């Protein structure tokens, strides 16, 4: 696929995010498709961070490692990132950051270019962006317009002015030989958005009618708390930063009991703290959506690095047995629609629903066509009719599906009792053995119903002898790696799992029938989805291709891993 890949690298606090925002939004408005990933350390200042910004005339499903441009915001970044720059690529830096580097691809911007008021490191991001835009053959007015639009309200007028003058001056500095307009045309579309998967999830929650959200700050899930918190007052959503993740889930459960659509969000470490309350949602049959932005564990692990290693812990989280669902979007578009659907699953089956993502995808941004509201439906599930007079409610009436009609306390005349203990139909505690069997089997029956109601895996590129099983952010790189590997004689189908638990063995068996070999490619050591498919469905998974270095899976990574795993075996 024709594309241009830009790496912006520097220390934390140097404006990588701002540069990315300006470049991303500008390319979006020019009509290009954009895919941005963030690679950062757990620190506020210093260190080495970078982002990749890939753009194309076609939709992009993943990031790539090899770059066409490097914007080095400090000297260290030249040394660390020049290796990933293509032979015909260009690297830009300020005069003061050049150091001893003497690479033919390096273009150094003298301090004399631009106004005196725009000297120093804090102008590096804008100046190097201006060099990039000039090299791409875009008129400087476009970039200046974006700077004005995005920074107009954030910067003091004189600083904004200095930035704008710098953009104009730097543009004319680029040599004609370095001007290389894209070989692909943009494909403009009205309404297109550039959005992170986390933001798409937050929007999906809003579309689903969320009323209450709670969380404790943690990478990478804080951005959902931020977005819902910021927009809460205008949308009528109550958002609270709780004292810990234990409180966050208990709060969401309370809100759901009292009639709101409620969710909480965290990452693996917070999910570990929530374990007890996950069981509470299970036994009280309280619908709740729990977002897990998976990151590298265990314990604090690598706080800003990605992993897909929470799946089995979520399937088993909390003691005892109870039904729950695990849903994972494969990309940004999915993030919106599945986040909305997660609430329907929670309400329909009155279970905790884990909506999961991984850090790499959660933070990455992609261009999407505006979400189609008509594809979102809101279904609150079974509700009980009102009684003539106030009376205790059989909240846990035994039914064939295992789902009992709900009533909302204080919104209805029913007196609604929910209990963390094993309980009778009225929510009153009892350890009577016959009742235990009735209530426990009632709850557990929901697993069969859910599995039957969930779609099975989607098979992409069907009919190949080899199938690669994937979930979440590995799907995009697998899709994009396919044409390259086909040239090398390696072809594969992809089985994409969105509804990860509970699984229907019949649907899974049918989808995976006929493949000679089945591998899972996951960002973990043990091959968790592969294990789950073996355990739940008896699927014959021959091997696991694992990546657990905490870094985002690029197209090259996927191709390399598949080539070494499958190369000699076809």
């Amino acid at each position, binding site marked *: 696929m024709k594309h241009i890949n830009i790496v912006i690298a520097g220390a934390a606090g140097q404006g990588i995010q701002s540069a990315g925002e300006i470049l991303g939004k500008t390319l979006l408005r020019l009509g290009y498709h954009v895919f941005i990933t963030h690679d950062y350390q757990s620190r506020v200042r210093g260190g080495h961070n970078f982002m990749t910004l890939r753009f194309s005339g076609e939709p992009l499903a993943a990031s790539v490692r090899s770059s066409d441009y490097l914007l080095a915001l400090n000297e260290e970044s030249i040394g660390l990132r020049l290796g990933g720059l293509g032979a015909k690529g260009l690297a830009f830096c300020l005069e003061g950051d050049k150091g001893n580097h003497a690479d033919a691809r390096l273009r150094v911007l003298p301090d004399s270019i631009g106004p005196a008021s725009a000297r120093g490191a804090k102008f590096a991001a804008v100046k190097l962006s201006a060099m990039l835009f000039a090299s791409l053959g875009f008129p400087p007015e476009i970039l200046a317009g974006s700077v004005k639009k995005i920074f107009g309200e954030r910067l003091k007028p004189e600083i904004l002015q200095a930035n704008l003058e710098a953009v104009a001056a730097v543009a004319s500095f680029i040599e004609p030989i370095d001007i290389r307009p894209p070989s692909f045309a943009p494909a403009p579309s009205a309404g297109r958005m550039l959005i992170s998967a986390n933001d798409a999830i937050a929007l999906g929650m809003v579309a689903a009618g969320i009323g209450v959200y709670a969380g404790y700050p943690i990478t990478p899930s804080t951005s959902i708390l931020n977005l819902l918190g910021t927009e809460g007052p205008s949308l009528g959503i109550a958002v609270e930063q709780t004292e810990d993740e234990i409180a966050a889930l208990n709060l969401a459960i309370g809100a759901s009991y009292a009639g*709101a659509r409620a969710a909480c969000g965290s990452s693996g470490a917070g999910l570990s703290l929530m374990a007890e309350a996950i069981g509470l949602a299970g036994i009280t049959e309280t619908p709740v959506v729990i977002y897990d932005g998976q990151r590298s564990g265990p314990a604090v692990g690598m706080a800003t690095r990605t992993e897909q290693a929470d799946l089995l812990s979520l399937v088993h989280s909390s003691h005892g047995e109870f039904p729950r669902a695990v849903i994972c979007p494969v990309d940004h578009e999915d993030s919106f629609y599945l986040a909305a659907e997660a609430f329907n699953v929670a309400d329909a089956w009155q279970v905790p629903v884990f909506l999961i993502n991984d850090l790499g995808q959660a933070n990455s941004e992609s261009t999407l066509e505006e979400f189609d509201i008509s594809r979102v439906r809101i279904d609150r599930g079974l509700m009980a009719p009102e009684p003539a007079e106030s009376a205790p409610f059989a909240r846990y009436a035994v039914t064939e599906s295992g789902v009992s009609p709900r009533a909302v306390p204080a919104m209805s005349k029913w007196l609604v009792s929910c209990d963390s203990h094993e309980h009778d139909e009225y929510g009153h505690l009892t350890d009577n053995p016959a009742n235990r069997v009735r209530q426990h089997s009632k709850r557990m029956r929901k697993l069969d119903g859910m599995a039957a109601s969930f779609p099975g895996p989607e098979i992409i590129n069907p009919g190949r002898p080899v199938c690669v099983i994937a979930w979440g952010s590995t799907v995009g790189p697998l899709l994009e790696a396919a044409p390259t590997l086909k040239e090398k004689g390696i072809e594969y189908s992809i089985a994409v799992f969105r509804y990860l638990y509970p699984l229907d063995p019949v649907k899974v068996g049918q989808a995976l029938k006929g493949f000679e070999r089945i591998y899972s490619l996951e960002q973990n050591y043990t091959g968790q989805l592969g294990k789950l498919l073996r355990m739940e469905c008896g699927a014959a998974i021959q091997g696991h291709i694992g990546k657990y270095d905490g870094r985002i899976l690029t197209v090259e990574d996927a191709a390399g891993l598949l080539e070494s795993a499958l190369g000699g075996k076809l």
Partner: protein
Amino acid sequence: MTCAETFDFHEPQWCPGCGNFDILVCFKEALCGLGLKPQEFIMVTGIGQASKLGFSVKCNLFDGLHGRALPVATGINMANHKVKLISVSGDGDYYGEGGNHFIHAARRNLNIAVFAGDNRVYGLTKGQASPTSSPGFVTPIHPEGVGGKPISPVLLALASGATFVARAFSGNKEELSGLMRQAIEHKGFALVDIMSPCITFNKTNTFGWFKNRAKPVGPGHDPSSFEAAIKLASAEQDSIATGVIYKACRPAFDARFSALKGETIAARTADFVPGRVRPLFERFK
């Protein structure tokens, strides 16, 4: 049927002579005194013998995890800021397992009445020390006596930002039910720490021990003074003050949300259509 009988539900299963019986009687009296009907409030309880009171009151009930009643109540308040919230549990639940939640619910000034049956011992698990057990209290786990200093629920609530702090003795029913009534009517976090004997597992802090020490605050105490409240709660030795120790007016947790003005979120949920997300799309263009 008397008013109190309209709240009768499951027969409680405490030891004869347990202070919880008196707390239950006073609670029903307080509800009747306020004219509350079973469907007009939600009880949120935790785990422990004191918490089991919830099963004996006909009402809406969420009986949650040990120590976690207050976060559940916070969520209920956010979904329905109009419904009265009452939480009943014990010293182990509020001040031990749920200590962090207690502090933060008080800090938020969550609009709730919290009735803590404080018997200074773990009854349900048969006689371990609680956060309020006296120094030197002997248990099988602490044969040499509990070390450290007991938590003062009153000082903890005061320091955490509670806006109604009271103490009662389960044996003084008239005072207790009056304090419960005031706590339920209070707008904000209202704690009534109820000294209550565990006749089976606490042979130190007996009915007589509490009775001899419980001294209602006189007209000389000014409950609107934070300093006076701290001083009163700090000076406890042979006499323990009961009654309203502190009462202040500060906006309750739900008052700071514009989302919680007017109709409740629970009531508006039916109007939340998918299209309400549309204005947010502009942020990403």
